[in-house]
């Protein structure tokens, strides 16, 4: 009987949901159902009524789950973030949709001189990239580098030439016209990988330029899984609660780890008590790192000589 024992009820209900979702790829099904048993146990603990009576038939439950998760369509092959990005793009389109196209079009002639300067600069950048392949490309022109003067001169000449070309009317000949447009497009496209290779670095903060939200304000720190606070004199601290500038708890990205989160008097978890007590999914504890603490200045004024530099 399914409802004689809550644990059996959960197990058989979950098994039925799993089997109803068996047409889904195994990996996707596991991601979707990862937490199902725990969740069902939670539901079951709330009442004596069997799961089937509360949640409906497992087949219906599975169908609703699939619908809410959006599985089974073409979208399921999309990578982890693309689906979400598409939704974001669709939302943005809705918001920006009423910006009249003609207004933008009317602006184009005014923007053209800007593009003439930019394309000259990008062309120089592409050439610089081709001629110094291998080493990192730093921003140009760089007056402190050995070829700084050359870079400045070449950039200025290129900008001058580009503006002169830009001010001339578009060639009438179809082939020339196509060539000019093609060259502009090629510069724009080639500049993308060159700019990307310039190593300004951190793509994880791609959203931080958003005016109303910065990465830090949301309390999420990609790449940081724990924080080990120390006093100035080197004593490790425990149970330190960290908050960001908006008073939100700072919670690191512990997706791949199990965290023993302490609870407050109200029974709610405290996810920002550092250092977090973490262990690997296989049960191994996460070992605190060895840290190199900065040397401490002795508090007594008449201390022995220290390596601290004098002003």
């Amino acid at each position, binding site marked *: 009987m399914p409802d004689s024992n809550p644990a059996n009820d959960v197990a058989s209900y979950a098994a039925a949901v799993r089997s109803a979702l068996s047409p889904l790829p195994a990996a996707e099904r596991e*991601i*979707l159902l*990862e*937490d*199902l*048993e*725990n*969740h069902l*146990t*939670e*539901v079951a*603990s*709330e009442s004596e009524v069997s799961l089937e009576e*509360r*949640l*409906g038939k497992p087949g219906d*439950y*599975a169908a*609703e*789950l*699939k*619908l*809410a*998760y*959006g599985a089974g369509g073409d979208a399921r092959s999309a990578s*982890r*973030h693309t*689906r*979400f990005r598409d*939704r*974001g793009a669709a*939302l*943005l389109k*809705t*918001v920006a949709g009423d910006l009249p196209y003609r207004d933008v079009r009317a602006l184009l002639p005014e923007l053209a001189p800007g593009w003439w300067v930019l394309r000259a600069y990008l062309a120089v950048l592409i050439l610089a990239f081709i001629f110094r392949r291998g080493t990192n490309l730093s921003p140009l022109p760089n007056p402190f580098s050995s070829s700084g003067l050359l870079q400045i001169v070449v950039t200025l000449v290129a900008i001058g030439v580009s503006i002169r070309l830009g001010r001339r009317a578009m060639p009438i000949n179809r082939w020339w016209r196509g060539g000019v447009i093609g060259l502009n497009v090629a510069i724009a496209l080639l500049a993308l990988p060159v700019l990307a290779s310039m190593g300004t670095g951190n793509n994880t903060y791609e*959203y931080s330029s*958003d005016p*109303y*939200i910065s*990465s830090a304000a*949301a309390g*999420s720190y990609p790449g940081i899984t724990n924080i080990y606070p120390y006093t100035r004199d080197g004593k490790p601290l425990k149970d330190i609660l960290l908050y960001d500038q908006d008073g939100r708890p700072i*919670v690191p*990205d*512990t*997706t791949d780890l*199990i*965290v*023993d*989160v302490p*609870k407050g008097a109200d029974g*709610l*978890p405290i*996810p920002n008590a550092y250092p977090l007590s973490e262990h690997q999914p296989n049960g191994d504890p996460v070992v605190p790192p060895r840290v190199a603490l900065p040397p401490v200045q002795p508090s007594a004024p008449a201390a022995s000589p220290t390596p601290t530099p004098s002003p």
Partner: protein
Amino acid sequence: MQPNGNPSDTSQLLKGVLDLAVLAVLADRDSYGYDVLRQLRESGLDGIGDASVYGTLRRLYQAGALKSYVVPSDAGPHRKYYGLNDRGRIALDQSTKTWGSFTRALDHLLNGRSTANAR
């Protein structure tokens, strides 16, 4: 006619905005699946199915809009808590705006109709 409309109508309407509702619940504080459902129901959205909420949470998590961590519980099973991350907050902000303009437009439309009917 029922004061709250036909339940199946309500659940149809809810499907489109469940992401927004779930993100809004998690904006207040981190929470686990069953608790999210309870909060949605307490705020009056009682047409939502358990599987819809669970599936939505898993999808938003997979899409990178939520962070997640496991909290052991002495009484019951371990609970998987979810909370908003950067993407989630951005999505919530954007969807809130979209929702605002959508409801304003629809309110306007429906109010226009009801006054026309009253005449």
